[in-house]
């Protein structure tokens, strides 16, 4: 149903997880929301049960890994996961052998990757919209691995 998908795209609740690191990615996202751009309807929520999209920023360690998976499980479907910044996408500078760090892809099915340190503000908003568009077309009901982009 096209109209329903269009409505869903106009109200996206985002839950931000700061897994570890400098917090710049999360701040970039909050800055993007206060800018004057064409993308509207994205709001921040503090409750995973109200969220549509999980924004993971920073390096994931053993402790934050558990919390992130817990948050992901609490989110109702359809839901999207976005890895924001170099740390979340690849571990960046901090990824070493036996460093105990994970990328988002290793623990959750990721819908979008936003690379860069720190990533651009507009890119983050666009990625959220694209990820939510993607999540409706693919198998969002049974969360089988990552969706095709």
């Amino acid at each position, binding site marked *: 149903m096209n109209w*329903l998908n269009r409505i869903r795209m106009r109200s996206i609740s985002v839950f931000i997880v700061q897994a570890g690191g400098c917090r710049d990615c999360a701040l970039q996202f909050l800055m993007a929301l206060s800018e004057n751009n064409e993308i509207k*309807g994205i709001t*921040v929520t*503090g*409750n995973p*049960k109200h969220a549509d999209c999980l924004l993971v920023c920073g390096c994931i360690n053993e402790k934050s890994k558990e919390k992130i998976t817990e948050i992901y499980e609490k989110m109702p*479907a359809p839901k999207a996961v976005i890895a924001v910044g170099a740390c979340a996408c690849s571990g960046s500078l901090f990824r070493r052998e036996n460093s105990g760090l994970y990328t988002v892809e290793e623990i959750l099915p990721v819908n979008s990757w936003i690379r860069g340190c720190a990533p651009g503000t507009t890119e983050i908003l666009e990625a959220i919209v694209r990820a939510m568009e993607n999540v409706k077309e693919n198998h969002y009901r049974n969360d089988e691995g990552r969706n095709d982009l």
Partner: protein
Amino acid sequence: MLKIIWFFAIILSVPVLYIAYNLIMAIMPGQSKTYILQPVFRLIKLFEKKDEGTNFFAYFFSVGSCLFSLIALYMAVAGFNFLFVISVLSMMDLLVITGAFSSGEFSGKMSAKRGISRFIIWLFTSIVSAAAIYKATGTLKLNEIAYLSENNGLIISLPFTFISLFIILLMKGNLLYFNFGISGEELTILGEALYTPYSGWSLAVVQIAQWIEIGVWLKILSSFLPLPNPVSFIIVSLLFLSSLFLDLFVSKVEWKKAARFSWGWAGGMSIINFIYLFYY
């Protein structure tokens, strides 16, 4: 026929108020980047979402609360006894709280605790206000109160009761210093009044129930003004809308502080008016 029109007008009035809020915010530069119809979009979206983790009771209690809010609205429109309306609204609130508690989650228990403290405050205030209204008018029937008020202006003899009932409205809308933070750090205008354990369509149903509840309080408050009913309803609605904007300039307080403020302002105001009427 008039009652049916009132019934549907009140159901629609609160979403219209939130849409008006979004409309004004969209015009203001550097403010919210939401759509004007965002509250409605979000409601439709919530109906489509699926939450496998939510227990059955959350759905049961959310539907129950919506039903009770509709009954309270009918009673308010038909001009029933003020205390009857309060008792039905209490049932509605208790159902939402029980649903939150039944989730067994930490967030659910936390919001249930806050919900109970809010419930005690608004119920106490309502009962004292009812006593003051009875003392002033000799009746508790809402249609008779509205009729008396149209000629005499109940707000003149019960100004503090009016304020205390308006504070109940602010508590229900989680506004200003009367925000109990029931939904944690929810930043959206729609989510502010919701309980954390609900999600998906149970959240949407609780949201509708909450809109209807605010409508009921607007209708009750409109009985105090010395004007025809529709005019006074619009004036009270505009007051509520202005408090939505005022909320932007007020920092959020810790919920225990909000509870203390609510006791002082809502409970205190109603007691002052009652004592004044009793002795003078």
